[in-house]
């Protein structure tokens, strides 16, 4: 069995061979490589193998996809957009519902506050001149207000300012999120990178 003779310059020469295949060697470097190859069988064999591989890869033609590829990509794009719309739609409905619920809570709190204020300050002249039905409704609301008085009174006296602040902050955040979702909704105009 023939034992392959090793070359102590093989690593450096292999790099030069690779550069030579890419046309990256200058004339002097190329001459040095050729001179070495003329005297070294090991490197010559490697050079021939590299050239054979290079020729084979260079001759290999580009392969295109099966017919209808672009249509399939467009279909997948459509499916992804539809899924995205569904997710965005669900989140938009959720945030708008939460916003509405928060607004309702605020409206009820204002109503109760007004009833309480009426009880403490006495009926306003305009209300005094109201119809009988209105005053009955007002007294009914007054009863409801009485029930909530103890609870809300304590709550507002103790945590009033931070509670109102948290409520307002939550409302602003929800509204902001909702506006962001509407602005970023799929199918809307996409962000621009300054491409002209």
């Amino acid at each position, binding site marked *: 069995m023939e034992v392959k003779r090793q070359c102590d310059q093989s690593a450096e020469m*292999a*790099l030069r*061979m*690779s*550069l030579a*295949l*890419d046309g*990256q060697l200058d004339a002097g470097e190329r001459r040095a490589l050729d001179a070495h190859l003329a005297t070294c069988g090991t490197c010559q*064999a*490697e050079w021939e*193998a*590299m050239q*054979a*591989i*290079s*020729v*084979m*890869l*260079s*001759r*290999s033609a*580009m*392969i*295109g*996809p*099966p017919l209808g*590829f*672009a*249509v*399939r*990509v*467009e279909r*997948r*794009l*459509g499916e*992804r*957009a539809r899924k995205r719309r569904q997710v965005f739609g669900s989140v938009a409905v959720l945030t708008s519902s939460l916003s509405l619920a928060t607004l309702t809570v605020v409206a009820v709190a204002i109503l109760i506050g007004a009833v309480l204020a009426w009880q403490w300050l006495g009926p306003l002249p305009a209300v005094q001149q109201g119809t009988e039905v209105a005053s009955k409704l007002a007294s009914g609301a007054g009863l409801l207000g009485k029930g909530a008085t103890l609870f809300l009174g304590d709550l507002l006296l103790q945590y009033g300012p931070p509670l109102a602040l948290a409520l307002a902050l939550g409302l602003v955040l929800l509204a902001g999120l909702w506006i962001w979702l509407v602005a970023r909704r799929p*199918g*809307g*105009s*996409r*962000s*621009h*990178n300054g*491409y*002209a």
Partner: protein
Amino acid sequence: MDQERAWIEQALQGDRKAFGQLVRAYERPVYNLTYRMLGDPAEAEDAAQETFLRAYAKLATYQPGRKFVNWVLSIASHHCIDRLRRRQRAPQLSLDGPSPPVWLASDAPQPDQVVSKKEQRERVRRVLDALPPDYRAAVVLRYWYDLSYREIAETMDTTESAIKSRLHRARQMMAESLQAA
């Protein structure tokens, strides 16, 4: 080029038909890359489709100073490298057993002989399959797209010296397998 710019601009406004034109223009180079990287037509098609979906999703990050096709090829090569690494972590079992490691079987025709396209394709596939994913991408970009070291480095997000080294090592590995055959 102007037409390409117009399609990109329209696609940025959400026009999927315009993006479809870009797909038609570049489906061949993208598919060729995914096929050369992955070696399987079905997987190559899926990876090429995924490449275009990703390109559409991040079209806003495309810098007009760069060649659009190189930008898409960059997405494709990264995606294929990821797929190959996942494949290496979870090797697929074949009922046929492992493929012969020799890319030029003893009874195979010699390079100077005429061989059928199918045989030629299979031979190229085996040569590339023996390379690590990073080396394979560098070889494919060099031979099929004739990209310079700088362009390959940009496409693969690395340095020119790393590309020189990868091509050199890849050629050595391929030459060794040829000599061993």
